[in-house]
């Protein structure tokens, strides 16, 4: 799920940027530092949408670096248990398949794949129904439900299932352009 929240961060700035474009430099450094990172508490920071407030800088003794407390708004993405996501399959093996929904890695183990789909090894490993109408392979798009998340300080990993109503492949890479 996506959230638009306000976060705070202490930014350290090298003294060489102290000049007319200090603020711009601070914001661009903030984006570079924060966007794409993951915190266990808030999830993945997708994008910074605005800077609310830059506090008074504090010069660090000895180094000359200045610390600014910066308040910024950002869009974060955090997967939840029970959430339905669309993801792209990245790897298929006998144990199941891995998929990605944006920055989140999801593993669907083979007992959470419908029973009528079987693993076919070969050049392009895939899971196929007995009549061959549905095929899950690399780059397939699947809709899955998250049944478990492991949230570390800097990493989120999910377990998904496609063994439920309305879940499964949403497109076929062989057919789609």
């Amino acid at each position, binding site marked *: 799920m996506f959230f638009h929240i306000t976060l705070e961060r202490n930014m350290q700035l090298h003294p060489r940027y102290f000049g007319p474009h200090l603020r711009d430099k601070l914001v661009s450094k903030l984006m570079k530092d924060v966007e794409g990172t993951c915190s266990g508490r808030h999830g993945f920071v997708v994008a910074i949408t605005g800077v609310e407030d830059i506090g008074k800088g504090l010069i660090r003794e000895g180094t000359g670096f200045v610390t600014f407390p910066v308040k910024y708004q950002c869009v974060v993405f955090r997967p939840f248990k029970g959430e339905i996501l669309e993801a792209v399959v990245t790897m298929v093996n006998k*144990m199941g398949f891995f998929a990605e929904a944006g920055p989140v890695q999801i593993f669907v183990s083979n007992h959470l794949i419908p029973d009528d789909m079987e693993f076919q090894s070969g050049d392009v490993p895939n899971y196929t129904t007995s009549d061959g109408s549905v095929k899950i392979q690399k780059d397939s798009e699947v809709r899955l439900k998250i049944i478990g998340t492991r949230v570390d300080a800097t990493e989120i990993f999910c377990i998904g299932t496609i063994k439920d109503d309305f879940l499964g492949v949403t497109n076929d890479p062989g057919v789609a352009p």
Partner: protein
Amino acid sequence: MNRRGGDPSPSPAQTAVYNIDSWNRLVRLAARAFYDDITLKGDNAPKAGRGDNRGMAVVVLDALTRRQWVREEDLAKSLKLHSKQLRRTLRFFEEEKLVTRDHRKESAKGAKMFSAAVAATGEGQRTGKEGEEKVKLHTHSYCCLDYAQIYDVVRYRMHRMKKKLKDELDSRNTIQEYICPNCARRYSAFDALQLVSFTDEYFHCENCNGELVAESDKLAAEEMGEGDDNARRRRREKLKDMLQKMEEQLKPLVVQLGRVKDFSIPEFGSLQAWEARASASARANGDANANDPSKSSQGQGYGGTPMPFLGETKVEVALSGIEAKEENAESENKSAGLKVLPPWMVKQGMNLTKEQRGVVKHELNADQVSQSDEKKPKVEVEDEKSVQAR
């Protein structure tokens, strides 16, 4: 999901299709199945010595099946409940989406209007004290069963119950565990990312690089974690048992749901619309008749819930239609060439035949009348008793 139509006041001809008894049976069954042991504890629960009010929910729902829109005070009076207690129960049912409620400020005149409507339904529960009530713009609450929603709610509830059990049985939402047969190390699916090897398509142990096996595989389960497996088997059996019991015990409800599916849904409309219709029909019938409970309930004839907005003749139509249906629903379906359109599909200006509107024209013969008289439930007798008691 909600099957209520946009038409707030279906004409009597359309409402005549539904079989109110079947719907009421559904409500009663649902009440006993799901709300039998609900206790509604208020803030002053410890104060009341007779704290256990289990089963009250069922009583209230039952009472509502015998009424349409009813003022909550009146309901409390006739159930001999404290109005606060009743309100708590009703609020609970409102949250459960079984009951619709309406609140409005009204003067004595407004209250009278409702009383007249109630009298028209021939309930006879009221003791005729309308004149004594001197209300100066009090807020009154009314409540009524919402059959359309009840149907959906009950079905949804059973679906969720079944799904939850089935999911557990199939261990659908459990996280797969993996075991290394060499060093007995356990991994969960969360570690999958670290375990994949790029040489083959199995997971490999971080410790000894052995191939991992999924725990549910027989071999692994036998070798290690035996006690765990036993516990799991017991749990599985328990779940299976529970599912079976549930299906057994809810069977009457399922059957009733299936039966009710083909009938159109009793729709009383909003309080205002209902009141207007009720008082209109009361005027048509003649008020003297309507106010006499025994007489008017004879006129209603069928079931515990009279229909105030149906004229006397209309009720007879409903009666014969119902009986035909009960005798053999199939033959009726065959004989009716055109399907009965449900009321929410019927719009003004549609060119429909009588069959489509669901009006079944049968001549009412003599023995049907006597039958219906015999069938008249004990409700009326109870009513008379309660009047005497006062």
